[in-house]
């Protein structure tokens, strides 16, 4: 379905995740973050960059992977993206919700 965010129209799934990563830009990320009650800082963007790199490399994302990467400790990750950090961070990053589940 289509969704208007700021000036742009993006396609999202039922939960609000972008279905086409090429539509993403930083402004869209900032707007999605606002909807989630998150004000983006440099540290937030650092995590988003990391997550997008993993996505582009087709590597699965998990809390464990992030812990191992050393990019951020998990407590801090929760503090930056309260609630479900991986779910929220991937939504802001414009990539699909991670399928850490079979």
């Amino acid at each position, binding site marked *: 379905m289509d969704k208007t965010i700021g000036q742009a129209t993006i396609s999202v799934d039922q939960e609000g995740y972008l279905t086409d990563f090429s539509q993403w830009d930083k402004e869209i990320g900032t707007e999605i973050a606002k909807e989630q009650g998150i004000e983006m800082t440099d540290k937030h963007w650092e995590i988003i960059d990391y997550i997008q790199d993993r996505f582009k490399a087709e590597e699965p994302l998990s*809390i*464990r*992977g992030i812990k191992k990467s050393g990019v951020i400790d*998990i*407590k801090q*990750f929760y503090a930056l993206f309260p*609630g479900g950090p991986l779910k929220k961070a991937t939504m802001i990053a414009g990539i699909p919700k991670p399928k850490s589940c079979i």
Partner: protein
Amino acid sequence: MSYLPIQPLTTFTVVNHNLDIMKNLVILGAGTAGTMMANHLVGKLPKNEWKITIVDQYKTHYYQPGFLFLPFDIYTTKQVKKNGAKFIPKDVRYIQEKIELIVPEENKVQLEKGEELPYDILIVATGTKIAPEEIEGMKGPEWHKSVFDFYTYEGAKALRDKFREWEGGKLVVHITEMPIKCPVAPLEFAFLADSYFKNKGMRDKVDITFVTPLGGAFTKPKATQALHHLLTDKGIKEVTDFNIERVDYENNKIVDYAETEVPYDILVTVPTNMGDALIERSGMGDDLNYVPTNKATLQTEAHENIFAIGDATNLPASKAGSVAHFEAEILTENILRYIKGEPLKEEFDGHANCFIETGDGKALLIDFNYTHEPVEGTFPFPGVGPLNLLKESRMNHMGKLAFRWIYWNMLIKGIHIPFVSATMTEKGKHFEETEA
């Protein structure tokens, strides 16, 4: 979905019947998957050309689905274990020794006592195991006292003894992180616990909570709905999106990264599941020591003469005996094709078929694959059954209990189970939509 292209095969030496050069097929692990492969291949590879060897350090073959029933005194210890040697065909060399290292560059396997096994084809079937040491406080002084697992024989037995004398309190059934072997087992455990304490006349003294890192009871939306209702009906509480940080065994509570706390008197956890340390030592695994494997052909991504099967792979399929069973039929064919230099069949579809015990002598049955989530319908005969998909029935429960006999007498011996195909059938099922 895109499948990876088949890798070109290198020239394989043509088998010469007059030479003494026997070729070697080595299987690592004599669990469900490895034992099935030995049984499948022994009748299919010419004995004068191929020598099959299987290696496993443990003597006992466990019926792992039985670990679920052991804590509730439904199965006895004798019903879940047998001597593994009984199931290895006599023409297969069975080595009971720890495996030190796989050296893919040299096509050989090193054993603990120094023997080296050269191979032409290697099958990795080393499975998955629990790693409670991954979470702070889990494998501490309270391990198997108030903090239990039921994924090992020892854990299930310790829990049985604890339950026999327990007078009630808070029972927490918990999943640490995904993926885990048999993702429905923790739910079944919660259902069986409800039933067990009801039968003991003390259900009112036991408070059961199901704690999961997932957003719901199960990994697939349709089944999650059905299972959520069952949890509610049985008065089992759910705590979702719980990413455990530590077990605070001094204060009897588990704590997650968001500082959510769940108190317990008995914690039954499914710890992190990881592939064997051998895979890590050999530099062949991912973060969790699972071997990157082509999800349709079962050839490993890194080495064309190494195949992987069952829980040892990184496939996005359930880690379950039924999956290993369906994989074994396809892998057998692919190994024969590989030997002949033919392209591999890209056939494995992630098919899983699981009974879910729901307590009170009933069970659900789910049938799904990579692309289709479990739905309602009938199995194995479309429109007839006798088993119902995604609906509780007594017949399904009988099916689950009958399965122990099928396991020991047919499944691991590589005997085809009639009417159940390796790839999933869509007939007799009520599909609404498919997931990407």
